[in-house]
């Protein structure tokens, strides 16, 4: 695409770069070793969590000694407990619905902000961006009162809908669509295509890469979200996995069970990571999405 071509700097001559690499490689090994140590340290909590999750409940395990045998009992007990299953399903609903609605509304708004002219457009865009300056927590109390007044406490819509107002998503879509050539949209209009078809058949297909990136981020943001689900979704029917996981504490709930619950909760994040790592990594560098 023209966009990526214009952004990429000219590659240095091949011969010259390999000469630099060749010269440096001898000195690389200490750095590689250091990097390996830091990487192992970073990943080790995950590995230890897996060992704990697979250790028989209430028996000695790491760090004191290696467990006598590994078992899937903790994983299975969690997965068959109705509360835990409900939380997991709720988190999926929360994340999936948010992804779909945010991708739709943000791409629509981004298209209008980028390619349409309407009264108050720049003021509105500015107002959207300004809300990024206001920490979510600063609005938490009035937001909770508002949602409660609308009978949204302990409901799915009360959990989901307030989190859909996402200025990062709108801004990202606007930036991306603004760089697409106007002619693409003009041609369709000249052919007499109604506006909704321009959106469905031109805007959506052209923005696929950025929609995919945004979708991954929205999924992670919502799957990992905590404060809003904590205050708005108190009953087991609506509670999400992060809030449920945070509530598992105490004597009657063994360490290995808690680790098994944590391990299950992180699986979707790890799937996203392993399948889309290259994508995630590149998009952070390019867009600064967080």
């Amino acid at each position, binding site marked *: 695409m023209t966009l990526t071509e214009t952004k990429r700097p000219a590659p240095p001559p091949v011969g010259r770069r390999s000469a630099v690499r060749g010269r440096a490689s001898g000195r690389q090994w200490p750095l590689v070793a250091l990097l390996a140590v830091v990487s192992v340290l970073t990943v080790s909590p995950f590995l230890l969590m897996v060992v704990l999750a697979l250790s028989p409940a209430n028996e000695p395990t790491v760090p004191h000694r290696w467990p006598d045998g590994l078992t899937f009992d903790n994983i299975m007990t969690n997965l068959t407990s109705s509360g835990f299953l409900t939380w997991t399903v709720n988190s999926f609903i929360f994340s999936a619905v948010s992804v779909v609605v945010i991708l739709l509304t943000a791409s629509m708004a981004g298209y209008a902000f980028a390619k349409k002219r309407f009264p108050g457009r720049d003021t509105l865009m500015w107002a959207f961006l300004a809300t990024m300056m206001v920490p979510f927590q600063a609005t938490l*109390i009035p937001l909770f009162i508002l949602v409660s007044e609308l009978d949204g406490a302990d409901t799915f819509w009360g959990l989901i809908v307030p989190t859909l107002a996402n200025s990062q998503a709108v801004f990202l879509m606007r930036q991306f669509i603004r760089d697409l050539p106007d002619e693409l949209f003009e041609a369709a209009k000249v052919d007499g295509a109604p506006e909704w078809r321009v959106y469905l058949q031109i805007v959506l297909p052209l923005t696929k890469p950025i929609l995919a990136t945004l979708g991954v981020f929205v999924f992670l943001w919502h799957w990992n979200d905590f404060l809003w689900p904590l205050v708005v979704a108190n009953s087991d029917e609506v509670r999400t996995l992060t809030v449920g996981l945070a509530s598992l504490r105490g004597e009657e709930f063994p360490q290995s069970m808690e680790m098994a619950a944590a391990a299950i909760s992180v699986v979707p994040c790890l799937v996203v990571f392993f399948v889309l790592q290259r994508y995630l990594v590149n998009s952070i560098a390019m867009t600064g999405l967080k």
Partner: protein
Amino acid sequence: MRHRLRDPITGLLFVLPMLVLFVIFRFVPTLGAAGMSLTDYKISGDWSFVGVDNYARLLDDPIFLGALRVTVVYVAIYVPLTVVVSLSTALLLNSVIFMKGLFRGALFLPYVTSFVFAGVIWRWIYEFDGLLNGLLAKIDLGPVGFLDDTALVLPALATVSVWKGFGYSMLILLAGLKSIPRSYLEAARVDGANAWQRFRSVVFPLLRPALFFVMVIETIGAFQTFDLIYVMTGGGPSRASYNLILALYDQGFGDFNLAYAATIGISLFVLVFIVSMIQRRLLDRSEK
């Protein structure tokens, strides 16, 4: 261009769904927070105008002042720590070719998890019965109550947060490092500059925008830390990790002092705003 000019209705229609969401769930609560902080809004819905009473109460409230202190100390520990870790790992990754993708993935991995997840794992790592004390016992040290010691709790929490989040800043800085033309570094090398001099005079100035972005993002994030502290310490011991968001949460959802909780929220906003402005100034000045 002609079409852009005569499209006021469709433009608005396309913005409308997101606009409605924003007005109801962002603009109204933002104004609501500011308005509420000037009232004595009660859970029953009754309220009367009280002027700046809530703000005056903040300045007189040892719990708020303690939470403010904890917030600032936490930011002061966390931000330098995470910038150093993410910059060092970015520099390392940038100078290595062997298995670079694997290392980058491993270092970035914790970023995709939740703070609740990180909190659960690290609570075990810090416990008396946990990993670190197990390792310390092997060399006849400890046990150390990482989360039970008022002096250790904030560094301990900041460490978890760095572990969970440094991969993000590392990637931003890595992209910044990659955009530095190799020829600049080569030229400096030819001129006899050693590694530190090359970093100081070539890399650092060119990396400054990325570093600034990382510092701002991390500072704002650190001011808003909640999940991790809620899960790991609940603000303890003796409120040594009780920050502004925990105070806001307790006032709002524990004691139902809704107007006072909203006032704490506004003070957080003002604090983050001022710090962002100061950082902006410092950058502008350093670029002159």
